[in-house]
């Protein structure tokens, strides 16, 4: 009897996991098709010899991945990507940390400053690029405009330089607008990190005889480590994929070539799908080198908690 009365509601009611699954199923399907499906397709093209849009390719293994390294342009674009990433990630971390530190120290009108520093985040890289293209104009002396003209006005002519047209350090200049844009975001991350350090811990450290610097050195910074790592991952993957900023500052020129731009020329100008897909695969792999260990580390940490 009791078993019979208990059955109908169980039959009527769907299993507990079903509504949840239904709710996320559209996005699972969309991601499966548009992210992983496309990713798989991309690798398939990268492993084929489809060097024009008409003839169907056949499997050639890693040939494209190896041959790419023979191209001078690829070497240059990889070097550029590394310089850009180092300067951009380093610069945004240092500047973002410093801004957060100032806020944390109880700057007057903190809310206002916070908004000001966060604003660049709201602008797209394209718009940032258009403005900075003008600011970083490479003309010097009498013809200077933008930042070079500003330096000239204040008698700092020795600071005038070629910006992104400089052969050795051009990509470092290219990272400046990116730092400008993303440091506010990093600041927000760090500020949350700073605020997450319990006051009692600082108090305890002070009681133990730490000076203010040591409080930061041994207590606060230790708490910031996960935040720093997250910020590095986020900045790092933005940096390896960078395309829009560079296109709007300098277009498709070798002096500021990066893998994403090379990929664009390979697909749309050279009409070489296999080469484009190979470059795309390298970009995905380089981002994965950053992201996958982070995901593993994160999963382990959550399990521990």
């Amino acid at each position: 009897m009791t078993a019979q009365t208990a059955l109908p509601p169980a039959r009527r009611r769907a299993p507990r996991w079903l509504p949840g699954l239904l709710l996320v199923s559209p996005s699972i399907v969309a991601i499966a098709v548009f992210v992983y499906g496309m990713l798989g397709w991309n690798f398939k093209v990268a492993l084929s010899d489809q060097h024009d849009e008409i003839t169907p390719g056949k499997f050639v293994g890693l040939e494209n991945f190896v041959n790419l390294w023979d191209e001078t342009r690829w070497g240059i674009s990889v070097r550029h990507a590394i310089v850009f990433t180092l300067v951009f990630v380093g610069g945004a971390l240092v500047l973002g940390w410093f801004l957060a530190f100032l806020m944390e120290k109880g700057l007057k009108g903190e809310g206002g400053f916070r908004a000001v520093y966060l604003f660049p985040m709201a602008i797209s890289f394209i718009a940032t690029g258009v403005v900075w293209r003008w600011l970083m104009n490479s003309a010097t002396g009498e013809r200077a405009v933008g930042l070079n003209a500003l330096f000239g006005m204040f008698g700092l002519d020795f600071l005038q330089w070629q910006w992104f047209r400089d052969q050795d350090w051009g990509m470092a200049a290219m990272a400046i607008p990116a730092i400008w844009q993303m440091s506010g975001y990093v600041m927000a991350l760090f500020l949350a990190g700073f605020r997450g350090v319990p006051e009692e811990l600082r108090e305890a450290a002070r009681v133990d005889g730490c000076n203010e610097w040591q409080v930061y050195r041994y207590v606060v910074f230790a708490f910031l480590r996960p935040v720093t790592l997250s910020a590095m991952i986020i900045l790092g993957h933005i940096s390896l994929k960078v395309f829009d900023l560079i296109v709007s500052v300098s277009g498709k020129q070798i002096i500021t070539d990066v893998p994403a731009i090379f990929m664009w020329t390979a697909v749309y100008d050279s009409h070489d799908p296999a080469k484009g897909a190979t470059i795309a695969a390298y970009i995905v792999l380089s981002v994965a080198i950053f992201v996958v260990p982070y995901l593993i580390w994160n999963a382990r940490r959550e399990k521990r908690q």
Partner: protein
Amino acid sequence: MRRRWISAAAIGLAGILALGACGGGDSGGGGEGGTSAKRVEVFSWWTGPGEADGLKAMREIFERQNPNYTFFDAAVAGGSGDQARALLSSKLQANQPPDTFQGHAGAELQGYIKAGKLEPLNFLYDELKLKDVFPEQLVEQITVAGNIYSVPVNIHRSNILWFNPGVLKEAGVAGAPKTIEEFIGALEKVKKTGKIPLSIGSQWTQVHLLESVLLGSLGTDAYNALWTANADWSSAEVTKALENFKTIMSYAGTPQEDWQPAAKQVADGEAAFNIMGDWAYGYFHNPPDGGLGKTSKTDFDWAPSPGTDGTFMWLSDSFTLPKGAPNREGAVAWLKVAASKEGQDAFNPLKGSIPARKDADKSLYQDYLAWNLDQWASNKLAGSIQHGVVANDAWRTAINDAVGLFGQDQDVAKLQTALVDAAKASGQ
């Protein structure tokens, strides 16, 4: 209760997503089906001042002559058509072509031709007797294996040396240099005055300069032979031409953002010379904001680029007939307007180019355009590299890369090797 609500929402969401997908397909198909009988979709990148006006003038003629068709302007903005071509190539691969699209006449269309995306227009050339009204050498240079795939609407010229007469006078240069050697001498004289001898823009303007230097150093026949099957890019003549290119580039000022700021340096008297296509004329001559409002012959002047007098290095915008065009009849009607004397004479004075036809109404073309029209009728022809006439997209990109890399290391031997490889790999 709450759970049921959630599952209802989930199912609803999934349903909406599915419906949305079907609905999108339906309305797209239905919409096209309903209007395709009348609508003619014309795909171009003419959105800037001058060119958009020219397109509008041709559109008015088209609509007057074909009252049963409506013109649908599918223009995509962006200077040299980069964005437009990227979109076009996806549309063609998905077999959803516009009724007709703009493309540079010549090798740029080869990819589409090989992929079987274009219909030959020989029937139209025969019907309208176009082979009689276009220059013979032009028809020859756009013919691929006996077929012609596009109708050239306008002609621009690539090998023009723009200069500032005031700066030349100050430097003691008597007039426009006639040969490459004279040019280098003149650059040296200008350098001594402290002005910029030669203004230059971004990477593509350097390729543009290279094509003029190649033509000027090699001569017309040798230059045209570079694009034939048994071309020799490794010859000593090419080495000499590339060394000239290096010498000339050593007189170049700081690279500007694009061709306009580089041309402006000449107009403003900061620089003496600039080698750029004749679209620069409109920029110099037109009143602000569209141009600089300068007076021709006093503020700026021009000549064929050094060593190329008597040769017209051309490029041309043309229209095509894609296979599977939804409205083929309408597209052919558009091509007839684009090929007609009336259409070309309406379009070109506004765009700042000259008609491809030899029978244009000369009174419509003033100043530079009048001079250029005469040259078009009498000169030998050579095709532009950067603007899609002689080299297909892949080859042109490889040449661009080679010039970009040359900018980094200034190594002539490497540049020549890269050009030899590019020619071999082009499959043209």
